[in-house]
């Protein structure tokens, strides 16, 4: 291996690592606020790529039907839950089903108007983000107080459902979106692609935006309060359902942005999200599902390991990345003191 290959691999690893980093941050966020280990995170990434690719191929994205299906199920759930209180039923419907309906309309409108790339991207992000409240309402809200283990099994079930729906609405074909920029820059002897610079800039921008959100906005503070002490936050008037829904929605938005970044780099299939999300997971676990900066570092490390192992032992790339989790867990088990859940 010479310097130029190493530099290329590093660039590759950093690009993927940056995307895993965004996913890791979303996972830490959802876990801290709701104790849910959010396995379906990767599905948001896959749905984003497939939606945008459908727009580019001039097809009506299957996302429309996915959103309508979600909205219909949520409506049904709210009717069952609030059958005796019509006022609350309508409010609950507005919070969890309306975003899906609006997003479906937007996607359809953008398709029908043959709108430009920017509008397609915007519609895609809105569509995927609006799945957040519906998924939280349907799967997690009724079991919000259950043990972590039950929540984890629910997560896996949601992953199953979303993957199956992905196959149903997007088909088994893989897709790749066109790059935001095709330009490359020479940096000394090596070429840096504009797309990877975009990924870095985006990631840094998003991390800063998240930091500001948590530090200065009321919603951000509410989420931090819930993460620190669920009962305490509830006592000062922060609804745990609202906080949970908000965190999953943010995770969906982050997933959508990650999808925009990864779409031009890799071919994504309806079931690709799982592995992509899990790589973010390995990073998040390095941070003990608690620390944002360590999770980010861990995710970038995963990207680098993946890039270099695809050079040295490409057939074993996935094996190496996922086996990496074991020494990490071993290290964590020596450094964490375990407190019993009473």
């Amino acid at each position, binding site marked *: 291996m010479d310097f130029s290959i190493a530099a290329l691999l590093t660039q590759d690893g950093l690009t993927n690592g940056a995307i895993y980093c965004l996913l890791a941050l979303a996972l830490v966020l959802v876990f801290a606020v709701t104790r849910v*280990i959010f396995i379906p995170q990767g599905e948001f990434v896959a749905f984003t790529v497939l939606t945008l690719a459908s727009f580019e191929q001039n097809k009506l994205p299957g996302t429309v039907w996915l959103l309508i299906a979600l909205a219909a199920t949520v409506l049904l759930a709210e009717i069952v839950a609030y059958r005796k209180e019509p006022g609350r039923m309508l409010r609950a419907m507005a919070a969890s089903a309306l975003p899906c309906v609006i997003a479906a309309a937007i996607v359809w409108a953008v398709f029908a108007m043959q709108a430009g790339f920017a509008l397609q991207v915007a519609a895609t992000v809105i569509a995927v983000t609006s799945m957040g409240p519906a998924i939280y309402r*349907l*799967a997690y809200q*009724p*079991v919000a107080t*259950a*043990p*972590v*283990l*039950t929540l*984890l*099994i*629910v997560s*896996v*079930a*949601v*992953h*199953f*459902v*979303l*993957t*199956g*729906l992905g*196959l*149903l609405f997007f088909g*088994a074909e893989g897709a790749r979106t066109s790059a935001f920029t095709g330009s490359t820059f020479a940096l000394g002897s090596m070429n840096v692609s504009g797309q990877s610079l975009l990924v870095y800039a985006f990631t840094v921008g998003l991390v800063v935006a998240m930091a500001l959100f948590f530090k200065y906005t009321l919603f951000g503070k509410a989420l931090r309060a819930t993460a620190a002490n669920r009962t305490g936050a509830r006592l000062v008037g922060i609804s745990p359902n609202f906080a949970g829904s908000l965190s999953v929605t943010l995770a969906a938005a982050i997933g959508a942005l990650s999808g925009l970044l990864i779409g031009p780099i890799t071919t994504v299939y309806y079931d690709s999200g*799982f*592995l992509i999300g*899990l790589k973010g*997971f*390995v990073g998040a*676990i390095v941070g003990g*599902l608690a620390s944002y900066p360590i999770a980010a570092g861990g995710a970038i490390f995963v990207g680098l390991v993946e890039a270099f192992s695809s050079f040295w032992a490409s*057939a*074993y790339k*996935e*094996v190496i990345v*996922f*086996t990496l*989790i*074991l020494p990490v*867990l*071993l290290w*964590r*088990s020596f450094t*964490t003191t*375990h407190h*019993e*859940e*009473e």
Partner: protein
Amino acid sequence: MNPRILVAIVVAVIGIAPQIAPPFYVTLLNYIGLYSLVALGLVLLTGVAGQTSFGQAAFVGLGAYTTAVLTTQYGFSPWITLPIALGITLVIGYVLGIITLSMGGHYLPLATIAWGISLFFLMGTIESFGGFTGLTGVPPVSIFGFELLKESHFYYFIWLVVLAALWCVANLLDSRPGRAIRALKQGSTMIEAFGVHPGRMKTAVFVIAALLACISGWLYAHLQRFVNPTPFGINQGIEYLFMAVVGGATSVWGAVLGATLITLLKTWLQDLLPQIIGEAGQFEIIVFGILLVVMLQYARDGLLPYLQHFVPQAKRALPAAADRLQHRTMPVADSPVLDVNTARKTFGGLVAVNDVSFNVNAREVVGLIGPNGAGKSTCFNLISGALDATSGSIKFMGQELIGQTASTISKLGLARTFQHVKLVATMTVVENVALGAYLRGTKGILASALKFNREDEAAALAEAMRQLERVGLAAHAHDAASSLPLGKQRIVEIARALASDPILLLLDEPAAGLRFAEKEQLAKLIRGLKDEGMTVLLVEHDMDFVMGLVDRLVVLNFGQKLAQGLPEAVQADPAVREAYLGA
């Protein structure tokens, strides 16, 4: 109807099924048998012990690939590859277990996802494993020279193994280690106090689940006669967990129920869904996922409890309360039992227990009292071994306790109760009490699974009954522990502590939350125990309860000893009055 008759009917149906069912259903039943084995492991791991694995399919693959590779490429007999496969699974399961189980609940499932994925890719990548096309030509199993070539023959082999596994796991759950496993969900403090090592127990359960999956894989390879990585992927691993959740963990039969329902549902959906949707694909996962979410929201114990509704539970006859266990010789009256000398515990800058000294002599009832925040509970935890003292010495029967584990302390003859009652809600009263005698039994997991533990069991249950009679709750022996009122639950805790044959009984706020009549009964019981030679140290803040009961009082305030002596003298002490009344 007696449950035994029901089991006999089920076994008879299994026995004649291949004679009357069409071949397609025999194949299906074979798979149900194989899946039941894996689901059984998960019922034990998830339903009973409160841990989860999504990677069971990988252990199935480990069993299948070990035998496939060794038989096709090295000419091993299947009967030799079985112990080899089990050995490999044991090592991997053990290593994964000790790495992840000592930590919080969610690390094990995450590790099993990662391990499931990496093993799947490994099986698909290694060339001598045949890559993703797999290995063909796996030889059949032969028993005494009879080759099991036909599916209907292999059927009997599979179901014999399944029934044997169900029998072993049911035996295990109803035994000394089984009671410890069933208590794992409660958290570790209580079982540690009775000498159970929770980490070791969890690892053992995880390994058992892995071994069952491995056996299923070995059977699969010799049934199919070829292997490829597809059935061992993470999706299959999730489906196994689904079977365990659907069936439920209230009985080992939940595994068979779950495996049957899911297999039938999957077959049916795989026919139906492509017709509705108009294209082929794994659409059944949508239905499975939705069903799983709904189950976890509305029927977290699975479907079996709904069926068990129709089967009356047989009350098991308990052995007569003969005294078969060894007993300690109690120390003579007034000889020193516990000697706390300048014990100190600091949490960072906070001194919770500040150089406290006091002693307890044999056949004495001593009360440790003080207002809230006085350091009583910390002091109590130092003695019981739940916390380690920063400095000083705590001697029990001449032995230093500081630095010892809760389990060693329990062995020395110290037993405790808990301020917040810690009974296992899913066990009967007598089983809860028998948990206290854990250290007095010797039979481990293997002996219990194979029912080589009859004498040990009879002795433990007899002792539990004897203690229940001693505290006056023998009539409630078969009730679910959670069905008793708080006052009786507290007394069950005392019976459980007594079952460990202690010299010193540590009671943590035994009167908290009790009604007046219940307090009277409790006081009477403690006095009775004293008369029988027991030494008691109790932490309380209910002055009235303590006054008429104890021989001596030790008063703590702000971590320091404020006074000690006879109850009346302490009550008259102006410093104590000030601490309590603030006057």
